């Protein structure tokens, strides 16, 4: 079923729709767009920041992983030697 609306109110809304001068508004909006910060440039910036953060996280986590590997290797060697002397 179609949404029912009051015909008189529809007419009142249509009649009172006023045209507005475009140019000052367009100029003000264009000034607020910040040239050089368009959607693609923003996307590029976000991607750059993302890349830097990922690299930093990798740089921090990788040595930790290596340290764990070293500890595991040392632990395994110690257990082998201990088992050999038992």
């Amino acid at each position, binding site marked *: 079923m179609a*949404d029912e*609306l009051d015909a008189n*109110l529809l007419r*009142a809304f249509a009649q009172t729709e*006023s045209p507005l001068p475009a140019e000052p508004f*367009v100029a003000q*909006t*264009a000034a607020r767009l910040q040239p050089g910060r*368009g959607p693609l440039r923003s*996307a590029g910036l976000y991607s750059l920041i993302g890349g830097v953060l990922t690299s930093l996280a990798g740089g921090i986590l990788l040595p930790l992983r290596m340290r764990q590997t070293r500890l595991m290797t040392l632990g395994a060697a110690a257990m082998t030697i201990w088992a050999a002397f038992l």
Partner: protein
Amino acid sequence: MTTAPSSAALGQVAEATVVALAMTGDARAFCELVRRRQGPLRNLLRRLSRDPTLADDLAQQAFIKAWRFLPKLRSVGAYGAWLRQLAVNTYLEHLRAVAPAGVELDPDELAGAGDEACRSDERMDLDRALAGLARDERLCIVLAYSEGMSHGEISAATALPLGTVKSHIKRGSERLRAQLDAYQPAREHAHG
């Protein structure tokens, strides 16, 4: 080799093409979209906020969001509805910031804002009558009557339940109609 169309040429191009250009980061194409859509968007926000200065600021905020998120637009044909949704969201965010849910601003104070001398009697009557409606009621009424949105679309745009939207529109229409009927004889009497 292709060259970007001039600003004047952009005015003759179909909107879908201008949207596609703006999505690639063409600021001139986006300004053409602002030029084309500013009227309906500002009128919508003027009806909702009842303050021309605030409405223009909210419209600019909506356009800035559109510029920023344009690459995420799924289809160029959806631009109009998407922009309107951004405007409604911007208005609702503004309301949440200035007045918590349920707190209604003073209609008389808000209705007095702006360049009333430029407005027709009918427009003033309608604006005054709209100011008398509750916030959500006015939102539903404006989206239905001014934007031609269906009840379902309004429900989706405002996150109000469909039943609530229907009752807001039904009751709001009745109240608006009654107020406009009351203004009419008073205005005719005042004009002699």
